[in-house]
């Protein structure tokens, strides 16, 4: 959260929308998200599959295919980047802003060694010699605590375990000391013990390097572990934002409440696992009212007619609902 007006946000997003025009329909994947991220802060975007999380992150990097129409503003340390020419934008990617992916195996080139893949990023951004870049790659591999890093540098992706690959991916993403890291479900493909190690590593590296992180997940437990702030995404909109503690302890939006009570953590505390009835709306045919209304247990007639108000229960928090009191969770 930006409390002082004179702090420049590491990244600020204003009313970002993404539409995909396909032959059959217009898909409204992202419908106006805004946030500001201070240096060193972690914002988690929490939401179900298909809510537009990955599309949002790709939009921030200018990585969407040509059939996507993007509006809104993305400011990096105060500079608008979406309107930059492609060559300038390419300089930022992997440099000032970098990204880690859900499936490191799919995100690494299978016929290049890990060392080469890290080094070429460094060469591209800093114009140093291949030798110096390889040395940086080695440092980064040690930094993310890959055992016998010098040997691993010469490994191909298929020669490493999933956890090791994700560490290598993190080493790659951090090689040029980005000020903003975008992490798209970086631990989803890993088993639980490795997940925790990677989360701890990310948090530690973030503190050391002072990066701002946008972390995407559908896992409430992971969100609780890593976030300073949480934004709950539904059908391409943030329906609730606030400090992690506030959002995850006293949810105000019925969707957040549903999400929290449908997690396994709830069950482990001896409660019945509740799922939200119904399924998310089609992004090609969004209703005029609240997109969650058809599934909401607190629905009122006004909800289906028009967009719910944006309420600010207290500074730094936001909820798109007709009410802004914390809901009693069944937990």
């Amino acid at each position, binding site marked *: 959260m930006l409390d002082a007006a004179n702090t420049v946000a590491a990244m600020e997003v204003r009313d970002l929308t993404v539409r995909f025009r396909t032959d059959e329909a217009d898909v409204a994947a992202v419908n106006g998200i805004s946030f500001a991220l201070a240096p060193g802060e972690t914002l988690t975007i929490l939401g179900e599959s298909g809510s537009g999380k990955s599309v949002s992150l790709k939009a921030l990097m200018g990585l969407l295919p040509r059939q996507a129409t993007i509006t809104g503003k993305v400011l990096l340390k105060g500079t608008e980047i979406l309107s930059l020419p492609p060559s300038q934008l390419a300089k930022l990617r*992997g440099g000032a802003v970098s*990204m880690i992916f859900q499936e490191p195996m799919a995100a690494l080139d*299978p016929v290049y060694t890990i060392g080469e893949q890290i080094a*070429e990023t460094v060469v591209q951004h800093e114009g140093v010699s291949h030798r110096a870049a390889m040395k940086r790659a080695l440092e980064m591999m040690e930094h993310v605590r890959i055992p016998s890093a010098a040997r691993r540098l010469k490994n191909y992706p298929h020669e490493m375990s999933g956890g090791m690959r994700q560490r290598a991916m993190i080493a790659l993403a951090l090689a040029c000391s980005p000020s903003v890291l975008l992490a798209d479900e970086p631990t989803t493909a890993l088993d639980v013990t490795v997940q925790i190690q990677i989360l701890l590593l990310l948090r530690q590296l973030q503190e050391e390097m002072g990066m701002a992180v946008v972390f995407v997940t559908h896992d409430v437990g992971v969100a609780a572990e890593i976030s300073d702030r949480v934004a709950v995404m539904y059908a391409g909109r943030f329906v609730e934002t606030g400090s992690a503690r506030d959002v995850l302890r006293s949810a105000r939006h019925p969707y957040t409440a549903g999400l929290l009570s449908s997690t396994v953590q709830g069950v482990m505390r001896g409660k019945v696992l509740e799922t939200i009835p119904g399924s998310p709306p089609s992004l090609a045919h969004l209703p005029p009212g609240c997109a969650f209304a058809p599934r909401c247990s607190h629905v009122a007639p006004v909800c289906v007619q028009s967009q719910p108000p944006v309420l600010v229960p207290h500074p730094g928090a936001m909820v798109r609902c007709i009410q802004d009191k914390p809901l009693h969770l069944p937990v």
Partner: protein
Amino acid sequence: MLLFSLRRLMLAIPTLLGVSLVVFGLVHIAPGNPIDMLMPPEASPEAIAQMKIAYGFDKPLYIQYFLWLGHAAVGQFGLSVFNATPVWDQLVVALGNTVQLALLAAFFGFGFGIVLGLLSAAYYGKWPDKLFSAITTAGVSLPHYWCAIVLVMLCAVLHDWLPAQGMGDDSLPFYERLQYMILPVVTLMLIPMGVIGRLVRARVLDIISQDFVGALSAKGLTRWPVLRHIIKNAAPPVLALMGLQFGYLLGGSILIETVFNWPGSGNLLNLAIFRRDIPVLQATILVLATFFVLLNLAVDVIQAAIDPRIRR
């Protein structure tokens, strides 16, 4: 890597032995007794028996095989049954003539194929893609002897642009002898161009749809470094196909060499079959098969050097 190469080399040996067995067997599979072909029909039984001893046909079959193989290994395939010149000398000349065509056809065929394939993929779905895909499809689907005949008609019969028969006299200057190669090379390169072009296009499209290519842009790589990644990923199957195609070119096309009257290995094979010249046939097939196996061996090793997942 070295281990992989050695293992592949070891695997090539049984393949080659198998080929040699089949080739050796040709003498015995071919209808008629090989001696009968050498001797006039009125030859006396004694003379025939003598001939049998002279050619070693009196020995058990496996002894005959090893003797033959031992000679073949040092290039001694004996004399041609047709004109009594050493088989090896004929073969070297014919192969040399075919290699000239094969190298040129491979160079241009593969070169155009790669360029057309890359451009098709780059302009996927747009008019350059449609045009280049039509060209490569024509390359694989037009019968190439038909193309050869059309080219001869056009360039040599209707107009007097290019020579279309033989390979020119040795006394001619180099550039004039080169003219004799143009029509056969153009005809021969059509298929390699077509198959390589189509494979390159398909491979590149497949690779750019994979997630890691998006991740390369996310690292901030610009167009050329990304292209390098795409090419390295696309290369192994393309190389394999090139090896195969080059092998076919080395074999020399019987049809093309006949149309252009080019004295190459395809032509030699054709003549040997008609003349029932078994030693020439055996030598040609064995040498070509060896080339083919070695070529594929080389391709395997290069592939494994590019893509570590192939090394097992």
